């Protein structure tokens, strides 16, 4: 697989991904958070066969499914079907959030599992300990019932 990256000033970044079959995918990550995907068949340089627009949230979920990490059943110690009934949420710790430089344990909410911490430039941190100190820019992957996750998000963003 070959990936070419280009900066589009004012727009975002463009990744051109060529896979083994010869097909290509062009991904534009917009500053607004949206993603634009275009699929080109082998040998076709001009017109994409398909295009797809994703919101930031959709793109993250799709990315997690493609990466195959976050939907592993042992991550919540429960079954796949159970997980499907619950809500998975990617919660970004914005600079200025009360959670910055605090331990994950301080924001424990009943019914919410923190599955992983995504930190730019570092490997995924699965099943983080309650003592893990959060940084601005971290993204937490949490699972739980919708209401519980909602409560958790409120705490972290307050």
């Amino acid at each position, binding site marked *: 697989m070959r990936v070419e990256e*280009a*900066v*589009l*000033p*004012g*727009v*975002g970044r*463009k990744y051109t991904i060529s896979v083994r079959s010869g097909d290509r995918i*062009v991904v*534009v990550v*917009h*500053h*607004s958070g949206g993603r*634009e995907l*275009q699929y080109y*068949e082998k*040998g*076709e*340089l*001009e*017109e994409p066969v398909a295009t797809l627009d994703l919101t930031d949230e959709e793109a993250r979920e799709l990315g997690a499914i493609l990466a195959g990490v976050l939907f592993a059943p042992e991550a919540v110690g429960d079954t796949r079907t159970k997980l499907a009934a619950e809500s998975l949420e990617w919660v970004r710790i*914005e*600079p*200025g959030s009360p959670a*910055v430089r605090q331990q994950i344990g301080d924001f424990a909410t009943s019914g919410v599992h923190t599955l992983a911490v995504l930190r730019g430039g570092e490997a995924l941190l699965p099943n983080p300990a309650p003592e893990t100190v959060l940084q*601005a*820019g971290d993204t937490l992957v949490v699972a739980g019932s919708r209401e519980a996750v909602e409560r958790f998000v409120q705490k972290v963003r307050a």
Partner: protein
Amino acid sequence: MIHPSVEAFALAAVLLALGAALVHRLRFPPLPAYLLVGLALGERLDIETLEPLPSLGLLLLLFSVGLEFGPDRLGQLSQRVLRAGAWDALALPLGAGLGLATGLDWRGALLLGGILYVSSSAVIVKLILDLRRASSPESEMTLGVLVFEDLVVAFLLVLLGGGSGMGLLGGMGLAFAYWMAARWLGPRLSRGIEGFSNELVLLAGAALVSGSASLFHSIGASEGVGAFLCGMVAAGLGLRERLEHLFGPVRDLGVALFFLTVGAQALGLIQGAGGLAVGLAVIGLLAKLPLNLWGAKEAGLNPKRQRYAAIYLLPRGEFNLVLGTLALHQGYLLVAQVAVILVLVSIPLGSVLMRYAPEWFGKLRSSAGGSPRRV
């Protein structure tokens, strides 16, 4: 008791919204509509009561251009794009030569050259986003060329903005100080700033932009270049994404009002414009087409994309108006008229051409494409 500016704002907002709604139905970008609404209203629009929103709109626009099109971007561009930028830059000496030939002195000629040369990053980015062309190869080249243009013109503005003597020295000194701040101070402070709340970043950013503009103005330099350099400093502080996000909606509102006032003031300015001003504007629009076609060819685009790229670079906007205002203050009425005519014509024309380019040139098969298209 309601302040008169609120009523003026309400009227302007309604008209702008109507214009935007109309062109939206035609699947058309809204910027030309703002200009045309302004043109239609003309003198009846009381611009003074709308202030300071239009002025702030222009400053925030230049700020975000500096944020996105700063010198650090140059290093991220490919050689091919830089070559296209160099071809494009030939329009500057060409325009200046044209100015000298029409009897302007060197200062007026350079202002004219800048006005004929620089395309509008803000307008073109907006058109590319609105028309969903971000992923095409010609957009990459176009945006890279715009980085090149904006830096050249910022430099030109520092040179020409400050009149002479002290103003010029002061402007150059300040610009150098800002550049150093972006380069050396930024990376050192960026970690501390990361913890600031959004509100603080928004207010500090607003203070920085308007403060810099006033500072540059007070020493006799161009306030536009102050806002541009300010954006460069903010990018150095690692605030690019956050500020883009925080300022986006405020800027868009201000920019809509700014283009409205440009349209409204345009008639008064170009009423006395003769054939010479119109001719220069037309030459400016046409002269860049072959340069950009060559540049796009050098950048490795196929013939169809070369035409697209040349069309994309048509719209003129913020920097042309900044240069035009400067020319007006320095007594070059002709140059200011050329700037206004260029902006008025090139934004609607560029939008139409960009919108319909695929339908007109779509049938051209690329020589690089190779295999026939599957149906």
